[in-house]
């Protein structure tokens, strides 16, 4: 390993060689907890909430989404989540299942969000998670 680094250093000028492992480490750390594209976290929750898993199923003709997240800080977080259910044309399917819902995540604990599509026309979704003002 050391030999490899020495080899790399010999190829790159000066301090630039040390930037590569640092960059690799930084990028791998970011890749581990990338928020899925379907989930839109409010900027104020960046670093406070981490989305751990997202599973989709379609057992009974209706798209079902389960998300596990984690409150990363030592403070209870009060949040809202809201699903936008979208049909094949990207149009929103309005329903009582698209209403904003309040929930809390205990300090340093995991939380789950469970959503079911209002109709069989739904093919995709967006989930918004926002911090609620106290």
């Amino acid at each position, binding site marked *: 390993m050391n030999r490899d680094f020495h080899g790399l250093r010999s190829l790159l000028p000066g301090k630039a060689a040390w930037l590569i492992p640092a960059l690799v480490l930084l990028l791998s750390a970011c890749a581990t907890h990338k928020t899925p594209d379907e989930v839109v976290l409010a900027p104020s929750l960046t670093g406070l909430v981490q989305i751990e898993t997202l599973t989709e199923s379609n057992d009974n003709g209706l798209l079902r989404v389960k998300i596990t997240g984690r409150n990363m800080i030592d403070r209870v977080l009060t949040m809202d989540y809201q699903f936008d259910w979208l049909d094949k044309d990207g149009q929103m399917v309005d329903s009582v299942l698209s209403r904003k819902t309040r929930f809390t995540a205990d300090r340093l604990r995991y939380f789950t969000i469970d959503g079911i599509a209002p*109709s069989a026309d739904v093919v995709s979704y967006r989930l918004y998670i926002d911090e609620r003002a106290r």
Partner: protein
Amino acid sequence: MTFQINAISMKTRALGLLMLLTLVLAGCAQRTVIVDREADDADPTLALEYRDFEFAAMDAVNSLLSSGAVDHPENKRYVMAVSRVTNDTMQRIDTDQLIRQVRIALLQSGKVITTSAISADGVQDELLDEVRRLRGSEEFRADTQVETGTLISPDFGLTGKIMQRNIDRDRRTQQVEYYFQLVLTDLRNGLAVWENETPIIKRGSNRSVAW
């Protein structure tokens, strides 16, 4: 003469004061606005409001559709009748505010259709009886009259209750607990195939009135 001028001056002043007072009061009056339901951040009230009904309906529909209780093995729709939903709160509310949203969402899901032919109080839509009374009437074309044996019996019955409990926490604070309870019964065998309770707990000033 001087007395007359003084009297007119006093009247003018009083009128001016009155106009000023009217303007001030009009300025203080609360404006009426139309609430955007998607972005309503107003503080909750101790009494039940539209957001509570929406939340309870959303929770119930989410639970019912996720439970699989209304998944037909042949991918058909089940027929549901709405039974009595009791308002056991101190407020004068129409329980239809909850049930209507549940009905709409279930119809939209494609899994359940609600019948208007029967309810706990008899026929829900009186026209169903009326059009059947017209059988044999010479005033209506025979081929447009409703035949016998056309109504469909329900598979499920939806019943429920909305409860309220008031608790004094201390001299200044009260807690109002609401419970939205719904039960879906298989009408062929009487078994409750799905049940759900959505509690909504509110806490506020003792000076507020929750009815």
